[in-house]
């Protein structure tokens, strides 16, 4: 009983301390949070009419029923899955330099999953009936619906990616060795889960014979390959920023190792794209229509054509950069490559994947979807939410990881009132 009360006390203290940590910071920190909060607020201002008037406030129509939201969702699931690319070398091959950043990478994955889930939520027409999807309380169509699968694996992955880093950080805070018997199986489990979230998300599209553009068995491998490009690219950029603005230490060697893995992934991504292109263009059946719409336009409609060519060019240039060790091992070129990949893969796998699936529609109609301001601002709002969550997580995680914020230190400096 006494022990329980003491535990509760300490939990509360820990909360208070992290809250203080989160609420105090430099001017830049405040400005950054304020900026994100205002973008979130703006997004909310657009979201409320969407809920109360209906999705008519977006540019989605019966011809193209999924748009920017689901495009972002798909992309972010990939980004989240890519955390595994950090976990594999760190824990399986015991590659030291990466190990330091795995915790941060996993928190980034968690933030991405939260964004992905938020994108699904804003896309849902009846968000008030969300509970219908919950197992046991609602009526989940498992195992038939891939969307049910996706909800399950995304949530498991989210829990894993919060559990593992939070556990490790709390252990570090109290200066304890983590219990390997507990945490290593979880870490190992998160590897297949990362593959699972992206595979299931690919199958979500893949399992629809009504949409030949998605109904290609190459889709899941393509998803994974592109995820292993875009995810690490973001992580490389994010960690350089963190290195710049916080006292986190990170060797270039770790970044270069990630870059090397990205080079393989990008090769695979381009190779799979080429296989898809060959199959469609050489056989030239009716199923080519969507691909044609995407890459060259169909019946004079070509809204996506400039986008996809820019995206493809970005991916190709980035591949060349990452191919040569000299270039990927220089921060300037590495960063250019990463930014090209982030944008290139977003185009290829966000709008470039979701929209053409609906064009032409099953009865051959072409509606040229482009998101409107509602969709743009809600999307910005969600990205800002994710960044804010990540920022706050970093605000606590980095001091713990670097030893700035620890139980030992706290006991030294604790105010007398604290033990009352």
């Amino acid at each position, binding site marked *: 009983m006494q*022990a329980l009360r003491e535990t*509760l006390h*300490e939990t509360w203290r820990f909360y208070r301390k992290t809250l203080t940590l989160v609420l105090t910071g430099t001017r830049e920190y405040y400005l950054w949070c304020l900026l994100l909060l205002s973008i979130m607020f703006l997004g909310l201002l657009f979201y409320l009419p969407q809920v109360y008037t209906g999705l008519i406030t977006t540019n989605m129509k019966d011809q193209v029923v999924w748009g920017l939201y689901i495009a972002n969702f798909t992309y972010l699931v990939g980004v989240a899955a890519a955390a595994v690319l950090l976990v594999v070398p760190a824990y399986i091959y015991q590659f030291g330099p990466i190990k330091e950043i795995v915790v941060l990478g996993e928190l980034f994955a968690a933030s991405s999953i939260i964004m992905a889930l938020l994108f699904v939520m804003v896309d849902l027409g009846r968000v*008030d009936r969300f509970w*219908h999807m919950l197992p046991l309380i609602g009526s989940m*169509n498992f195992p038939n619906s891939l969307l049910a699968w996706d909800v399950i694996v995304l949530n498991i992955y989210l829990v894993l990616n919060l559990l593992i880093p939070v556990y490790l950080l*709390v252990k570090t805070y109290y200066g304890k060795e983590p219990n390997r018997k507990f945490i290593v199986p979880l870490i190992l489990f998160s590897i297949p889960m990362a593959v699972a979230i992206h595979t299931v998300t690919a199958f979500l599209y893949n399992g629809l014979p009504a*949409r030949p553009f998605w109904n290609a068995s190459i889709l899941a491998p393509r998803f994974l390959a592109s995820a292993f490009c875009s995810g690490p690219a973001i992580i490389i950029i994010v960690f350089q920023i963190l290195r710049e603005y916080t006292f986190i230490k990170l060797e270039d060697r770790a970044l270069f190792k990630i870059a090397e893995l990205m080079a393989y992934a990008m090769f695979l991504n381009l190779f799979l794209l080429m296989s898809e292109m060959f199959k469609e263009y050489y056989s030239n059946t009716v199923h080519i229509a969507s691909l044609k719409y995407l890459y060259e336009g169909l019946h004079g409609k070509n809204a996506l054509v400039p986008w996809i060519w820019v995206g493809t060019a970005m991916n190709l240039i980035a591949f060349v950069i990452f191919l040569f060790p000299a270039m990927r091992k220089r921060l300037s070129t590495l960063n250019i490559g990463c930014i090209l990949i982030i944008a290139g893969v977003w185009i290829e796998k966000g709008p470039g994947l979701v929209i053409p699936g609906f064009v*032409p529609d099953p009865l*051959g109609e072409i509606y040229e979807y482009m998101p409107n301001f509602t969709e743009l601002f809600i999307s910005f709002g969600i990205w800002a939410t994710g960044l804010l969550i990540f920022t706050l997580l970093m605000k606590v995680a980095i001091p713990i990881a670097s030893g700035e914020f620890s139980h030992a230190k706290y006991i030294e400096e604790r105010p007398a009132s604290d033990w009352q």
Partner: protein
Amino acid sequence: MRDKLYTRREWIRNLCLTALSGSAISLISSCGKEEVEDFLQKHFLEMTREEKEALITRLEARYLKKYGRKFKVSAQEAIPDTLWGYGLDLSRCIGCRRCVYACVEENNSSRLKPQSQWIRVIRLKKGSLVDLENSEHYYNPDLVPEKDFLYMPVQCQHCENPPCVKVCPVHATWKEPDGLVVVDYNWCIGCRYCIAACPYRGRIFNWAEPNVPSDQWNTSVHYLGNRPRMRNVVDKCTYCIQRVRVGRYPACVEACPTGSRKFGNLLDPQSEIRYVIENKRTFRLKEDLRTEPKFYYFFEA
């Protein structure tokens, strides 16, 4: 010892509290009586007879208040030994779209903002019957039929293997014992996965609250059919469930000026649809997908 207790239990608790605070945010919402009723409403198939009756009384009262019209809401179940099938004579359809508007009126579809139509008539060049990619949806000549074209109305095909039902994450849509694919508009979460899965464009989304002039409501409605819908849910052709379950022809069948549309019970050897299948040259749209539609297009033999 104490330290050990801290650490292990601590993060479990931290986690629980985080989850709690998260769910509290999602519970903040406006709570009118109707919203609460709607929010707590069970899945239609899980309701008892009494619950269904209470629901219908509630809906009729609400529609009276909301639309100023006295609705008669039915929840009539499938007639035993029926499996509804549809036939459409492509050699006679002239593409006049009478069926489209008869359907809109019968089924209380939104007239404008957004316009919602369950039937889409597409125009195809003679000689390339299923070249859907080159179909014209917006043809508007002075007179139909036109010399070089034929017309193909498409609506929900009521597949025996409906891909839309398979993908729905919440069982909001299902196949009734008489083969009709229906939606519980109060259970649909509006994810539109079923629309993505449908190869026939048989499903339509209510992008906003339907707009129906108050004097144009059809007040004879079925819970799973033409009752007033709400914003952000999916609806679709039900072969006029409110009519066929009392033995009446669907509205589109009665509206067709050329008699191209045929309807009947596939299990009844004497039915019109069975005559079509046995005596005409029938095909079903996109048969390669093995959705097994119960909608037969046919030609004169």
